[in-house]
């Protein structure tokens, strides 16, 4: 077990480094001197040259990359170009809790819709109910998030006036975004739950349970469900990572000051250190999510560790 974890952690490190390198190099290609972006092009050339030198921007890229990685390991992602004197790491840490709140609320919605829907349509397989649920969940997957968001805003905020349109200053501001984000994930959770439950139903131990004369409901809840949920749990771990690392759309539309939002703002403002920091942070979250999922999986299913 321990050696598996060590092995798994060790393979994650080069991937993370690769990502940092990729982002770093990609943003180096962007034309224009960052100092000019910072000073809004009105500063005199001497000041620009001076600042360029002070920020070590004349060094070759590999030295700057090494310095960036070293600083990042100490929690320093540099200073934002646009927001004067604000550290990128501080901006990320300010935004992160908002994203966490949104993620938790959205997860509750996604599970509350997805898992029961999946179970119902697996149990009633082939029925009209099953077809309706599955068609609905495919519709949910096929709807662009921004469109669902606008639809919800129109119906629940503009027409019915139940909830605020956007903003972020209290619990009621979280409800609409949570439903929008949760809705888009519930479809895939429902489909996955259904497929795995159906697969589990073909096992010999289910036939045994039925032969023992157990009620169908307890065959499903006690025997089939437990064994079928593992892939679903893995998928959810990755979904959490995905949501945390940028509910970009939802946050942008509802004006939630989270990670996705600062990334979009960084792109609009051409704020390179912020963009670099937030994307690397997001990718690190995904890697961590995968790592946790893999380790949890191997913990639950000993067969994984051996192969």
């Amino acid at each position: 077990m321990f050696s598996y974890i060590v092995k798994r952690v060790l393979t994650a490190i080069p991937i993370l480094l690769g990502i940092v390198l990729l982002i770093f190099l990609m943003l180096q290609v962007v034309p224009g001197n960052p100092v000019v972006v910072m000073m809004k092009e009105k500063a005199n050339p001497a000041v620009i040259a001076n600042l360029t030198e002070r920020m070590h921007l004349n060094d070759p890229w590999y030295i700057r990359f090494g310095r960036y990685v070293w600083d990042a390991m100490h929690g320093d992602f540099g200073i934002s170009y646009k927001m004067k004197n604000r550290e990128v790491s501080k901006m990320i840490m300010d935004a992160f809790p908002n994203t966490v709140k949104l993620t938790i609320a959205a997860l509750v919605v996604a599970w509350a819709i997805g898992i029961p829907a999946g179970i119902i349509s697996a149990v009633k397989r082939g029925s009209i109910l099953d077809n309706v649920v599955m068609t609905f969940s495919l519709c949910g997957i096929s709807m662009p998030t921004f469109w669902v968001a606008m639809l919800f805003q129109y119906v629940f905020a503009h027409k019915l006036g139940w909830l605020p349109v956007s903003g972020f200053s209290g619990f009621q501001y979280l409800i609409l975004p949570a439903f929008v984000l949760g809705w888009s994930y519930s479809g895939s959770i429902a489909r996955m739950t259904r497929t795995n439950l159906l697969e589990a139903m073909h096992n010999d131990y289910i036939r045994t349970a039925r032969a023992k004369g157990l009620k169908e409901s307890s065959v499903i809840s006690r025997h089939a469900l437990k064994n079928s949920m593992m892939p679903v749990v893995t998928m959810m771990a990755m979904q959490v990572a995905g949501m945390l690392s940028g509910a970009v759309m939802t946050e942008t539309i509802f004006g939630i000051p989270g990670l996705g939002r600062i990334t979009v703002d960084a792109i609009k403002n051409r704020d390179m250190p912020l963009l670099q920091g937030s994307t690397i942070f997001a990718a690190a979250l995904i890697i961590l999510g995968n790592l946790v999922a893999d380790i949890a999986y191997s913990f639950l299913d000993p067969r994984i560790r051996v192969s």
Partner: protein
Amino acid sequence: MTEDKNKDFSQLKDTDPIISYEQEESAELTELNSTWDNIVNTFRHNHLALIGVVIIILIILAAVLAPVISAYDPYVQDLENKLAKPSAAHLLGTDAFGRDMLTRLFYGARNSLVIGLIPSIIAIVIGTVMGLMAGYLGKTADFIIMRIADICLSFPSLLLAMVIMYTLGASLLNLFIALSIINWGMTARTVRAETLQLREKEFVEAARSCGVKRSTIMFRHILPNCIPSLIVIFTLDIPSAIMEEASLSFLGVGAQPPEASWGLMVSENKDQLTRAPWVALIPGFAIMLLVLAFNFVGDGMRDALDPTLKE
């Protein structure tokens, strides 16, 4: 009660993925043609997949015939008629610049179809070649290729696409590049996994012992066996590319005004939500319809071609 249960169980068996797979395999042993007949049959009996095909054909027709079937120019502004309600002259009304919505939807369909197809083709070609090389050559090639794939897959795809578009600048070509980069990894992983299994099979061994070149074995012996999965991946890549383009355009880093792109149309008209909700909501509905149609077809393909690929 017992009867009921039996019935239920036999029904399960009938469409059981594992059993139908075995059936397909045994059909393959007797006659090659009947496998394809089976596939076509399974697909034809899938109503949702057929509905998907019809929707896609209609949208393709609308896109190709856009100049013929619409009386308006998608780019000419007519400020006197802005935000007109749906009427006989403008079936779906007009947007904030007085442009006919239906006309712009037709032209937007061109954009979405091209964006759905071309990056998916590039991604599937790159992914297949990389997956074959990683699986068949193994060792260093495998290590390097799969780590690069891991890196691409460790990003939330929208975020990676945003950074690429930021770096390269917003244009159609760059959109192709960004969407190809975020989609090739999954193909590579699947093809590699299949190659790893296939390379141990007797027919590959036989070819190898005859002294057939490595590239010939990869492309002539292994690749044809991956085609069912590739078709499935391809049909499911298209809707995700369409969705990603719409999202990027909505965020302002994809298609640029005055181009007619469905994602861009939603974002251009999002401020009209209270005054003219149809203008803001209809393009989004079009995106959903096209993506849904491709998902229906993709699901049907998966059920017909490769039951083992089920989610």
